[in-house]
């Protein structure tokens, strides 16, 4: 079987997740390797969550916030956008492939659009190949009989 990337999607349940169920339920191309983490607000997504996902072996991480126009706490999100752009740049700086961690702050989307976004992202990650940088690998334990 061909390799399928593991994708973690952090998304805001207020704006982005309105169509998550549909997205997962409809015949989305790569549903089973996509893990969707819903948060009440995009500003609750911390750098720890993103880095933890990377460390645990996610091949692609998508942070999907809604647009600033219809966010119920626009300010927080702007602050967050400012922070995450820096994180994305820093990861690129240390040599993590650009595109592994991706931020999207688009308009509140019906499920379809989120699905398209996830599908496109999955394709991009597929092109990058499996993640190896900042992924923790444990040495196999030798069992002594």
């Amino acid at each position, binding site marked *: 079987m061909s390799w399928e990337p593991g994708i973690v999607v952090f998304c805001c349940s207020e704006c982005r997740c309105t169509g998550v169920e549909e997205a997962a339920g409809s015949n989305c191309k790569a549903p089973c390797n996509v893990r969707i983490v819903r948060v009440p607000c995009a500003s609750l997504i911390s750098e720890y969550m993103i880095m933890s996902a990377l460390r645990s072996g996610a091949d692609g991480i998508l942070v999907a916030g809604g647009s600033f126009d219809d966010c119920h706490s626009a300010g927080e999100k702007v*602050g967050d956008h400012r922070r995450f752009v*820096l994180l994305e740049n820093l990861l690129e700086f240390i040599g993590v492939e650009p595109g592994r961690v991706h931020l999207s702050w*688009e*308009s509140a989307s019906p499920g379809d659009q989120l699905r398209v*976004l996830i599908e496109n992202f999955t394709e991009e990650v597929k092109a990058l190949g499996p993640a190896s940088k*900042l*992924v923790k690998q444990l040495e196999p334990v030798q069992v002594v009989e």
Partner: protein
Amino acid sequence: MNMATINDQITDEIRKEARRLLKTGEVAALIGYAAGSLPMTVKPLVVRCLEDCERLVWNTFCVLNLATYLPEVLSSVETPYDPRDPRPEEPQAKVAILATGCWSRNIVIQIQEKRVDRERVVVIGVGSRGMVSRAKVKALFPEKDILTVDEGDHELVVHGADFTETINRWAVVRDNCQTCAHPDPVLVDIRIGEPVSERKNPHPFQQVELLEQRSSEERWAWFTAEFSTCIRCYACRNVCPLCYCPTCFVDDARPQWLGKSLDAVDTGLFHVLRAFHCAGRCTDCGACESVCPMGINMRMLTKKLNKDVRDLYGIEAGMEPEAPLPLTTFPLASVEFIVADLAPLPAAARIVQPSSEGDESCKHG
């Protein structure tokens, strides 16, 4: 070197000023430096009585950032009160602190972050001529023991058991001091010595830019090699005035974000996250790099973030006490950035411009 050097004169002035401040009761404590026990080192000293004033020194090896100790010393001179009671109303005792350009900017950040009350701090400003890196001097004399180093204005005389050599001072000044544009304190209550002019600095981010030009793979090779020797002693975190969380994320156990071993991934993540937490706040004081026992150049990560914060948000950390913090306070009207996305969207949708509330500032955090 019979004539008193600039730093000797500054030491004298600091002692005189410290005696005056403590005698008049203007301050309850003063944070400065005492000579260290090893050559080319100093240690932080909190002076609370007149006798200790004579222990104060100022030399070219003052690489620690004194702002780190300020909040603790301030709370040590407060009237004690029960945490359940309101803060005492009466004015609290003041603390004086020595500050060069970068340390004063760290004090500004402490004021912005409400860690420190401006009214209670007396900043004794000293223009910095650049501090010397102990590691650089040691590297010039491999396999030899340096016993003492005498300091002139422009040269250092290094004495060992069987040698004495004179070296140029600027050649061994720390990298961050060589590229610093603001050596003079931005916050001054009492000035010692002559003001130092702003330095014209055509390439403040040269080292970062050189790395940026390399390929992704080369940068990854640099990152893994640079941090491979880290022993996770956390000296770089402890010495930084920006790191003050009661429980650091590296010490968290539930959830445990990072492993505690010397695993390369955990070490790398520690450095990425530590640097990320200093984004928009780091003043490039170089204390972290100076204290690292393994000589790791972790300042490169914070420097990269400083560059991005300057380029994207037009802010240099800690230049004005009234200025907002770049990552938590910002006018909504200024938000206008391109959101690069994979899904092709009409051009108009790619520029996000919140229409609400004109130029009112919004705050969070």
